């Protein structure tokens, strides 16, 4: 989990151009990290590439916080 979080955090920092401290498990992409809907779509694309996986639209729509993304990815990694 911690390893997934670090990789996700790195991508978020790059993609959304935010400070590392702001990227916590609880942080909401839209409310706390100032991402718009398209930013989140783009971020999900980057995460798919990073973790070599496909995140279905239905799953992607449920990703609102950093924790949502980390937990979803963690649940799929064996």
């Amino acid at each position, binding site marked *: 989990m911690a390893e997934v979080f670090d990789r996700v955090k790195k991508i978020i920092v790059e993609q959304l151009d935010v400070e590392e401290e702001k990227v916590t498990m609880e942080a909401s992409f839209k409310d706390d990290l100032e991402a718009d809907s*398209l930013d989140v*779509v*783009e971020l999900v*694309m980057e995460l798919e590439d990073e973790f070599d996986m496909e995140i279905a639209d239905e799953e992607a729509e449920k990703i609102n916080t950093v924790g949502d993304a980390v937990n979803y990815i963690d649940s799929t990694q064996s």
Partner: protein
Amino acid sequence: MLKGKNALVTGSSRGIGRAIALELAKQGANVAVNYAGSEDKAQAVVEEIENMGVKSFKVKANVADESDVKKMVKEVIGQFGTMDILVNNAGVTKDNLLMRMKPEEFDQVININLKGVFLCTKAVTRQMMKQKAGKIINVSSIVGVSGNPGQANYVAAKAGVIGLTKSTAKELASRNIHVNAVAPGFISTDMTDELTKEQKESMLSMIPLAKLGSAEDVAKTVRFLASDDANYITGQTIHIDGGMVM
């Protein structure tokens, strides 16, 4: 003008799509030729393009089928490396008076002419967002603006394409993806050859420039919209109709 750019033109084995594919190639773009049924004609277009010294290949796909479309886009990106220009041209007609039009005829035309544009656009967007650049040109029709008796399904689809163009343009503008439409009027092609003499005469009488357009007239406008010369244009529908609808 388009040297080094990679393009996909749907429905480009004949008619306006073929002219667009050839024009983009003439300007230096590599062009993937999509077709649904006319394999021989698609192959002929590919050979014509290759003779211009750029890359080309044909790719079969029904644009109304999501998995077909995904495979097609994957293949184009696999072969060319990038996806710079998408021209959504594939279209069919199933003309009939509204009172006689079967729901299946309505669905079929909407699926290919409108949903096909949605599916292809969605499929290329990922790549274009990554590139932070892209040109999408949708081939609508002037009847999508003006209406036309006997074509309720076609007109609904083509009007839908204009709305889709505007929404997509607004959604993707921040990623430097330009989305525009062209609305050809009375263009001489296989499709217009099927119109009745009455339909043709009544249309000609409404064209200020008093002549039919050619597929090349449309292709040249598409080439402009696909080029960097059109970098400050998005969400627009350009009428190529001899002044028929202003």
